[in-house]
């Protein structure tokens, strides 16, 4: 059994114009030690997938209407808020895109980290290195020490002096390091990183990626790395899932997917990578636009833009077809060829 199993998850998001079918039955399983890249154009549902795993989408607007998410065997769709809080910041860590807006500007970073450490310690006292029921003062001191150790770990120089600084006293890259430290305080088993380097300078991006790569290796974390940058996937992921308009159209180990992309969309994506720094928005080589998710096309959602489409493509959503030991593609054209 994998650490994280997303099974045929369906999600609709209510908005002003109507209800968008944002996740159209996605399945993904992430094992310990695997680093999964989740790629796709903007709006295809990468972030909502990550947020769904931590159950951080408010209902409304979110409405789940099918499927399951299992974390270490626990059905998260049935878990209540208290159960989810025992996982968040403890067994599931998260990092987001913009380090300038993700740190609370009016609190010292140490104070925020201490609260996170205390929370993690409340679920598992071993994290603070204290026996069960240690007095509050001891827990506070241990939480602060842990915060300093974590800052040191993510490469903040002079962590002891910096722990009482405010977020604006750090550069963007340093802030992202602080956020990584916070996400790792609870010694998580799964790290969800939603475009952790997108908002950073190119030179800093590489440093943060290297840091993540090292930490993941040392801790044996399972990672879900959300990105629209295939270069990033090639650098640090072991596996990749390609999303298009709420579906995972292709998934597998990075080497196989990049070498033998099966889905026409994956091929277009790979063909559209001019540099390491990919451009957001429409793909140049691909005609048409991303479908309207409020009135999605029937069957394969990529069919209206696909050169290989046949009338059958609009009939039903194509099932994933294995094309390699770990590699599968959801496309009728590929299924017919196989």
């Amino acid at each position, binding site marked *: 059994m994998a650490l994280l199993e997303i099974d045929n998850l369906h999600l609709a998001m209510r908005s002003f114009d109507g209800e968008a079918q944002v996740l159209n039955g996605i399945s993904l399983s992430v094992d310990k030690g695997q680093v999964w890249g989740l790629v796709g154009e903007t709006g295809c549902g990468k972030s909502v997938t990550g947020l769904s795993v*931590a159950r*951080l989408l408010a209902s409304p607007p979110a409405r789940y209407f099918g499927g399951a998410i299992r974390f270490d065997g626990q059905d998260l769709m049935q878990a209540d*808020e208290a159960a989810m*809080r*025992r*996982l*968040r*910041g*403890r067994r599931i*860590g*998260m990092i*987001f895109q*913009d380090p300038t*807006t*993700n*740190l*609370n*500007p*009016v*609190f010292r970073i140490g104070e*925020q980290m201490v*609260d*996170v450490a205390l*929370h*993690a310690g409340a*679920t598992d006292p071993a994290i603070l290195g204290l026996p069960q029921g240690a007095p509050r003062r001891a827990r506070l001191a241990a939480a602060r020490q842990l915060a300093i150790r974590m800052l040191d770990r993510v490469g903040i120089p002079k962590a002891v002096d910096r722990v009482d600084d*405010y977020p*604006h006293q750090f550069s963007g890259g340093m802030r992202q390091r602080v*956020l990584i430290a*916070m*996400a790792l305080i*609870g010694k998580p088993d799964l790290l969800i990183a939603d475009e952790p380097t997108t908002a950073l300078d190119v030179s800093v991006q590489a440093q943060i990626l290297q840091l993540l790569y090292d930490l993941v290796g040392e801790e044996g974390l399972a990672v879900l790395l959300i990105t629209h940058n295939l270069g990033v996937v090639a650098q640090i992921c072991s596996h990749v899932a390609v999303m298009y308009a709420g579906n995972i159209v292709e998934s597998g180990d990075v080497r196989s997917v990049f070498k033998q992309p099966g889905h026409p969309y994956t091929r277009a994506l790979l063909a559209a990578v001019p540099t390491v720094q990919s451009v957001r928005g429409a793909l140049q080589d691909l005609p048409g636009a991303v479908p309207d998710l409020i009135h999605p096309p029937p069957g394969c959602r990529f069919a209206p833009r696909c050169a290989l489409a046949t009338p059958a493509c609009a009939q039903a959503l194509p099932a994933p077809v294995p094309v390699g030991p770990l590699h599968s593609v959801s496309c009728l054209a590929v299924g017919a060829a196989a």
Partner: protein
Amino acid sequence: MIVPVLLGLSLLVFAISHLLPGDPVALAAGPQATKTEIAALAHELGTDQPLPVQYWSYLTGLLSGDWGQSVLTRRPVLADLRIYLPATLELVVAAMALAIVIGIPAGLLSAVFVDRWPDYLSRILSLGAISMPRFFLGLLLQLGFAMQLGWLPLNGRYPIIEDPPPFVTGFLSLDALLAGDPDAVWLALTHLALPAIAMSLSPLATITRMMRSATIEVLQQDYVLTERALGLSRWLIIFKYVAKNAMSSSLTVIGLYVGWLLGGSVLVETVFDWPGIGLYATKAIVTQDFMPVMGVTLAIGVVFVLVNLVIDLLYGVLNPKVRLG
């Protein structure tokens, strides 16, 4: 900053009160007074001097603690203020404390439960509180809690038949506390309750609304999602991490309201027969007694400037960027 503000203020009140028509000295001397008697009184009070001379002597007097004489009470204005200003300040402080202690959490909760019943309740109540005139609310409170239920005294600051605690700060409740007299504390607080409530409702409503809209905005911020993703509890996030971010705008309102309540205290003081600067200034105005009017205006100005200095410091506490910038 404080010096030019107060200098300007003193010049303004001096000019206005001397440009008003009427002869306060004649009024004070009484209807039977002869011309010579009036002239003698004018000379005694210095009102026969040219205006710039009068202003200069007023200004130098201010600095040396001589704030002039009340023509009516024949007492030094500063001595009167020493009694009446604390009475009003006690009322304003109590009213603002109520408004802050209730308004901040009410606004937070209203935002958290936006468009659900706690939000509707708080919005309806604050709209009502803002639209209700304070004197009318005061009368309603008297009718309900003093006359019908008999829980609280109708008016006044302290029972006339009792001796108040020894004068230290002029805040009766505080003086009673300093005197270690729990009965006196209780008496002072029960007298304070109704006028403070009447005075607090509009700042309470405004703070609730400011806090609500600021909180709604803060709840959209990325760091709130990060804090939730890190497992922090909902209430820790709201009452610690969100509240501190949302409080800046309420702070501005608090500063403005202190001045507004001080200047407008007369309505509540009249209804509750509260012996504060509002009543004192009103009596002085109708008898054209300039010195107390100027004294009260200056005192309000000083308090207002001081309060806003404190508010500026608090901005720095709430937002570290302000402090360092």
